[in-house]
């Protein structure tokens, strides 16, 4: 009998590995994804929904034996594509200045410092909104720590184009903000 035995493929260890990997990625990338989506103009609820959808897709992707290569850019791409469906939110967000909870940013500053910081922030806000859409997305993904190659995978553009866009966008911001 022992010579007729077949290797038994239990899917449980693989499932456990997938779940562990997905959990690690969730803990690591949940906030960067939320920040990126909020930067694109999604509301808090919309961003939460998109992130949940993205991780559900990740779980299905891993369970189906999908590639583990470039999983970070894969997640951002899924979230980016989902967010693109919320075009109205994007237009709403980019159509008006971001008036953040500025008090929390300048809580410890003197009134003069707070006014100066607020002016500087509004200048930056105007400069960011004057960027081209893809330039802004490149900078947002860069701010989340993605490499140029990964940004290119998310936005489906060549890495050299990402480099050009990042270079151009940073220089525009520096010029408009008088840095």
């Amino acid at each position, binding site marked *: 009998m022992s010579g007729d035995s077949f290797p038994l493929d239990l899917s449980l260890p693989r499932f456990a590995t997938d779940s562990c990997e997905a959990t690690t990625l969730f803990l690591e990338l949940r*906030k960067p994804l*939320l*920040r*990126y989506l*909020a*930067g694109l103009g*999604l*509301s*808090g*609820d919309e*961003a939460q929904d998109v992130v949940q959808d993205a991780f559900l897709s990740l779980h299905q992707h891993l369970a189906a034996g999908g590639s583990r290569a470039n999983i970070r850019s894969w997640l951002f791409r899924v979230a980016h594509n989902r967010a693109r469906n919320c075009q109205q939110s994007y237009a709403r967000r980019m159509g008006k200045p*971001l*008036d*953040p*909870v*500025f008090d*929390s*940013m300048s809580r410890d500053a003197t009134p003069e410092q707070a006014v100066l910081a607020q002016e*500087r*922030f509004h200048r*930056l*806000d105007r400069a*960011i909104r004057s960027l081209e859409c893809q330039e802004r997305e490149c*900078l*947002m993904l*860069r*701010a*989340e720590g993605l*490499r*140029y190659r990964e940004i290119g995978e998310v936005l489906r553009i060549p890495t050299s184009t990402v*480099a050009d866009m*990042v*270079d151009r966008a*940073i*220089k525009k*911001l*520096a010029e408009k*903000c008088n*840095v």
Partner: protein
Amino acid sequence: MCDYSGRLIAWMDGELAENEAPVVEQHVQSCEPCREQVAAYEEVSRDFAAYCDAALEAATATKVSRKLPSWVPVAVGAAAAAGLLLLALLPPTVKQVEPVPQAGIATPPAVEVPRARPLKPAARRHVAAQRKAPDENWAMAGPAIQIAIPADAMFPPGAVPEGVTYIANLSLKSDGSVQGLRLQP
């Protein structure tokens, strides 16, 4: 403008090729304008990251404020305070009237008023019948008042058969005298 200025941001991001990065690094160390540019780009990058944080914070704050606008607690608190103040200032609606003692007249002792007994089932049934079929020809001067009067108080003994109940519709004048009386079995 320096020849290296087009590669400074890529160098900052560690995106240059392995053989190119040391060359740019060496140049930046020796070139004051490039060092200043790198410092400016780093500052803008930091500000941009703070902007992204602020965007997330604003999105979360919008969610909270949609659930509970900031003026709601103030308005609720003001309304509650006004309500309490009104209750404290307004006189009570039911006043307890103290009996005024008159000279030579002793205040009568409190008399316990007997509780109203429920009407007999037969009387209730008649009331119900009256509601179902009101006499439209009968002109009521005002709202109906039901008073239960024993039959032997109105009629001579034996005039009303046992077990028969009447409903008396009375209309009163303004001075309180009876204007009209109608009996319905």
